[in-house]
C-alpha cells in the first residue's frame, strides 16, 4: 500500500470514531478563536501555526474521503485530495502543536485540537515518520522501563546519593525504600526527579519520614519513570505496553496505592485514561498523586515548615496535563503557600494557564530548540517575568526542561524546579529544616529532561 493510501485509509477510519474526532471533522465554524488563545500562534502569528489550519491537514482529506459534499464539490466544500508531498509539512506542523488543550477551553464548540494533532502524529508513526528523538525515547522506555535508559544499578546509585544528601541535610537517616513487597504506597515519579532534579523525590521521602510512614512506601528499581511518550507519538500500542509494565509491577509489589509523582502526563494516563478505560480490567490498587497526598497532610496540620528557608518570590506554572486535564490545581498551591514566604500567582492560571511551550513532547526535541525559545515559550516567558518571581515551580519534568532552557536562553536569573523541592528545603524533621547550600545553581545546571 502506498503512503497516500495509508493516510487516506487512516483518515477515512475517523468516520467510525472516536466520536470527538469525527465531530471535529464536521462542525468547525472557522471562527479563529483557537488561534487567539494558542501559545504557538501567539508566539508567531503565521498561517501554519493557526490551529484550524493545522487541523485542516486532516479535515480536508476527511471531507474528500467521507462526506458527500466533499466528494462532489471538492475544493468548494473545503475538501482536498491528499498529496504525499504534504507529509513533510505534516511532520513539521503536527510537531509544532504543544497539545496543551487551551483551544478547547475557549472554542465555542469545545473542539480539542490536540486530539487532531495526536491523530496526525499517529498516522505519521505508522509511516515511520515520527521524529527520531521521539522514536528513540519510546524505544528506550519500552526496553528499560524509563525514558533515560537508566539501569536498576544506576537507579540504586542515585537512591544512595539521595539518601546521603538527606543525611547531610538533616543529620538523620531518611529512607527511600526500594522493591519492598507489600508496601502501602508505590511512588512513581518521572525519572528526572530521581536522576537529575532529586529534590522532588527527597521532598516526598521527607513527608513519609515526618509522618512516621517510612516503612509504608516503596519505589521500584525497574519502574521509576511514569513518563510515557506513546501519548506524544500517538501510538496507542506502545503507550499501553509501557503502561502495562507499571501496572504489573504494582501488582507484583502488592501495593495499595499508586502514588504518581510530579509528572502531569504520567498521572493523566494512569488516572484518566488507563483506570476509567479499564485497559487492564479492575485494579487491586487506587491511584493518587503526590501533590494531592501531601496537600492533604498539610491541610490536616500534620506537617510543619520553616518558610524562611524559601524567602524568594515563588510562582507556580500549572502544567497543562495537571491543570486542564487532571484538575490538580489547588493542591500544589496548598504546598507552596505552606512552604514559601512569598507565593505569587501568574495570570491567567489554573485551567486557563498558558503552556510552557514544551508540551506534547516538544520539550525533548532539541532540533526545534530555537522555535521553542522564540515562539512556543514566548507567552510563558512574559507571564513569568510579570510575576517578578525568582523561582518557578512546575510539577512536570517536560515543563521544567522547557522552562530552564527558556531562562537560560532569555538570560533570566530565575530558578526552575518542582513543588516538592520547596517542601524539601523547608520541612521540619525533628524540629529542624534542612541545612543546604546553593540550590539555585543546581537547578540551573540540571537542564536534561
Amino acid at each position, binding site marked *: 500500500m502506498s503512503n497516500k493510501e495509508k493516510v487516506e485509509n487512516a483518515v477515512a477510519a475517523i468516520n467510525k470514531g472516536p466520536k470527538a474526532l469525527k465531530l471535529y471533522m464536521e462542525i468547525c465554524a472557522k471562527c479563529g478563536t483557537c488561534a487567539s488563545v494558542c501559545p504557538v500562534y501567539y508566539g508567531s502569528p503565521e498561517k501554519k501555526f493557526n490551529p484550524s489550519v493545522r487541523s485542516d491537514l486532516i479535515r480536508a482529506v476527511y471531507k474528500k474521503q467521507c462526506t458527500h459534499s466533499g466528494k462532489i464539490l471538492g475544493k468548494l466544500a473545503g475538501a482536498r485530495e491528499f498529496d504525499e508531498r504534504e507529509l513533510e509539512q505534516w511532520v513539521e506542523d503536527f510537531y509544532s502543536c504543544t497539545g496543551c488543550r487551551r483551544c478547547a477551553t475557549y472554542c465555542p464548540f*469545545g473542539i480539542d485540537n490536540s486530539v487532531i494533532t495526536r491523530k496526525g502524529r499517529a498516522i505519521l508513526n505508522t509511516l515511520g515518520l515520527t521524529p527520531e528523538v521521539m522514536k528513540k525515547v519510546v524505544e528506550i522506555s519500552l526496553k528499560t522501563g524509563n525514558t533515560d535508559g537508566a539501569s536498576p544499578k544506576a537507579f540504586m546509585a542515585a537512591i544512595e546519593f539521595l539518601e546521603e544528601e538527606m543525611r547531610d541535610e538533616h543529620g538523620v537517616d531518611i529512607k527511600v525504600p526500594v522493591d519492598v513487597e507489600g508496601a502501602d504506597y508505590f511512588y512513581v515519579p518521572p525519572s528526572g526527579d530521581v536522576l537529575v532534579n532529586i529534590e522532588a523525590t527527597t521532598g516526598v521521602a521527607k513527608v513519609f519520614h515526618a509522618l512516621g510512614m517510612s516503612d509504608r512506601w516503596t519505589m521500584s528499581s525497574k519502574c521509576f519513570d511514569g513518563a510515557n511518550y506513546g501519548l506524544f507519538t500517538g501510538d496507542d500500542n506502545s503507550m499501553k505496553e509501557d503502561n502495562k509494565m507499571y501496572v504489573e509491577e504494582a501488582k507484583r509489589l502488592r501495593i495499595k496505592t499508586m502514588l504518581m509523582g510530579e509528572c502531569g502526563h504520567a498521572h493523566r494516563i494512569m488516572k484518566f485514561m488507563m483506570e476509567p478505560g479499564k485497559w487492564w480490567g479492575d485494579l487491586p490498587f487506587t491511584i493518587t498523586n503526590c501533590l494531592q497526598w501531601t496537600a492533604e497532610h498539610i491541610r490536616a496540620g500534620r506537617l510543619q515548615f520553616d518558610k524562611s528557608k524559601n524567602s524568594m518570590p515563588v510562582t507556580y506554572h500549572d502544567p497543562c496535563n495537571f491543570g486542564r486535564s487532571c484538575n490538580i490545581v489547588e493542591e500544589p498551591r496548598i504546598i507552596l503557600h505552606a512552604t514559601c514566604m512569598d507565593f505569587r500567582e501568574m495570570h491567567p492560571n489554573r485551567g486557563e494557564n498558558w503552556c510552557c511551550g514544551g508540551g506534547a513532547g516538544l520539550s525533548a526535541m532539541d532540533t526545534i530548540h530555537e522555535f521553542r525559545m522564540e515562539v512556543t515559550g514566548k507567552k510563558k516567558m512574559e507571564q513569568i517575568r510579570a510575576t517578578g518571581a525568582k523561582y518557578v515551580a512546575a510539577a512536570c519534568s517536560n515543563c521544567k526542561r522547557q522552562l530552564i532552557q527558556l531562562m537560560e536562553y532569555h538570560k533570566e536569573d530565575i530558578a526552575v524546579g518542582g513543588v516538592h523541592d520547596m517542601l524539601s528545603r523547608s520541612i521540619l524533621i525533628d524540629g529542624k529544616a534542612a541545612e543546604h547550600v546553593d540550590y539555585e545553581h543546581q537547578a540551573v545546571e540540571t537542564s536534561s529532561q
Partner: protein
Amino acid sequence: MSTYAFIVGGVLPGIAALTFIIGMTYRFRVWSRTVQPGKMTLFPASDNTIKAVLAEAVFFPGLFRGDRVLWMFAWIFHATLALVFLGHLRVFTGLVDRILAAMGLSADAIAAMSNTVGGIAGVVLLATGIMLLIRRVTLQRAKEISGLPDFFALLLIIAIILTGNMMRFGPHFELEQTRVWARSLITFSPAVPQNGLFLTHALLAIVLIMYIPFSKILHFGGIFFTQSLIKRR
C-alpha cells in the same frame, strides 16, 4: 400561478423539510452511535454536565473569555436569529396573534409591536451579519482559515436577512397571504403568494434549510455533542 412560484412555494418546501429532517436525524443518529473510547474531560468542569453544556450553547461563556469582540457579534447574531425564528411563527400562523389578543392587546398594538421588535431585529441581524463578514475578510487569523463554504453560508444568510428586511421596510406585504400559504402546504393544495420579493426570500431560505445538514452550520446541533464530551466529569 407561474411555474417558478409553484416550484418555490409548492414543491421545494416539502423537499426542503424532508431533506432537513432526514439529514439531521441521520447526523444525530450517527453522532450518538459513534464510539468514544476514554474520557476527555477538560477542567474546570462542572458537576452538572447538562447545565454546563446548555449554558455554553445559550451564552457562549467560553468564547466570552477567549475573544470578547467576536463574542459580542456572535452572541447578538445568534440570539437575534433565534428571536427572528420565533417571529416567523407569527408569519405562518395566526395563533400568536390570537394568544396576544386574548391577553388584551389590540390588533394595532400587535402590529406595532411586531413592527418595532421585528424591525429592530432585522436591522441588528443585518448589521452583525455584515460585521462577521467584515471580520472574516479583514482579521488575519479568521481570513487565513476561511474557505468558500464559510463565505457561502454567511452570504446566504445575509441575503435572506436582506430580502426579509426589504419585505418589512418596502411596500406593504399582507401577512395573511403567508398564513394561507402555510395552511395550503399542509393540505397539499399550494396557494403561493405572487410576490417577487417573497419568492426570492423563500427560495434562499429553502436553500439554507437544505444546506444545513451538509455544512458547517451543523455546529448548532454538534455543539451539544462536543461540549458534553469535554464537560463530562
